[in-house]
């Protein structure tokens, strides 16, 4: 019984760890499309001022530490955001500025 309990605990922990942590991909894991995107964005990143680069690094780490369901929620939100018509995107950005002021 104790053995069964241990096995179950291990299984639950393994599933939870898998759900919580998304392993980082390597360059070889990327599709050609993703490599092209990463390559272009890499040059964009290099052109940014140090403070902004650091900010993006921080966000990357924050994002990686989020549970997978939260990561998926953010990606869905991003798809929704990108799918908005330009005027609605602009309105959303305006709302975001107001929201930031309110929550400052």
């Amino acid at each position, binding site marked *: 019984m104790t053995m069964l309990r241990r096995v179950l605990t291990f299984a639950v922990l393994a599933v939870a760890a898998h759900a919580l942590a998304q392993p980082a991909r390597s360059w070889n*894991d990327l599709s050609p499309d*993703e490599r092209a995107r990463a390559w*272009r*964005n890499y040059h964009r990143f290099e052109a940014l001022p140090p*403070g902004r680069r650091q900010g*993006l690094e921080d966000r*990357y780490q924050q994002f990686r530490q989020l549970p997978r369901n939260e990561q998926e929620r*953010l990606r869905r939100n991003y*798809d929704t955001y990108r799918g908005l018509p330009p005027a609605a995107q602009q309105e959303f950005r305006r709302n975001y500025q107001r*929201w930031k002021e309110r929550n400052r």
Partner: protein
Amino acid sequence: MRCQTARTWIIANRDGELTARQQRAFDRHLGGCSACRAERAPIEMLLATLDGLEMDAPVSARLGHDVLRRVRTLGAEAGAPGQIAEWIGRLVPALVATAVLVVAVVGIRMPAPRGNDLPTRPRTRVAAATTPAGITMVRRPKGRVPDEPPPELASRPDLFVDLPFLRELDKLRHFDSIATMEESYPPAPVAGPEPSNG
């Protein structure tokens, strides 16, 4: 803080470059200065729009061919083969640069492609424009994707794949709150605009 200082800090604030002390001073100033807030809004919008632009300008295959055809025509009109080569050398960069500029300007007015920066549909880039002899006339500024990426890119490619997404992370975390904000916030001032304190 003077308005002039606050306005020079608007971009630094957006880029996260202010120290904690500067950030507090900046926030305090903006909290009481509607003129600076009004100044910031279009800058934020402009920067957000610029963030959405791609570094490379996609050009249709037809435009590339038209440019090349036009160059050949101009070359033929110029006369001798030596002159043709000289004209091509002079005109091609100018024409392609103009084409890129036109595409970039049009791109600003068009909605950004859905997805994460790079649309999946095949595109012809300026880089693909070649002479009849097969010589590449215009290359992408950063070259082709290397087989062996720089160490920084190789060590965490997801950071760069997701760069546009990460830029919007704060918005995305509070997406629902922002999307459902009421139009009436903040309440409009009853009297005229607050005087600038700078």
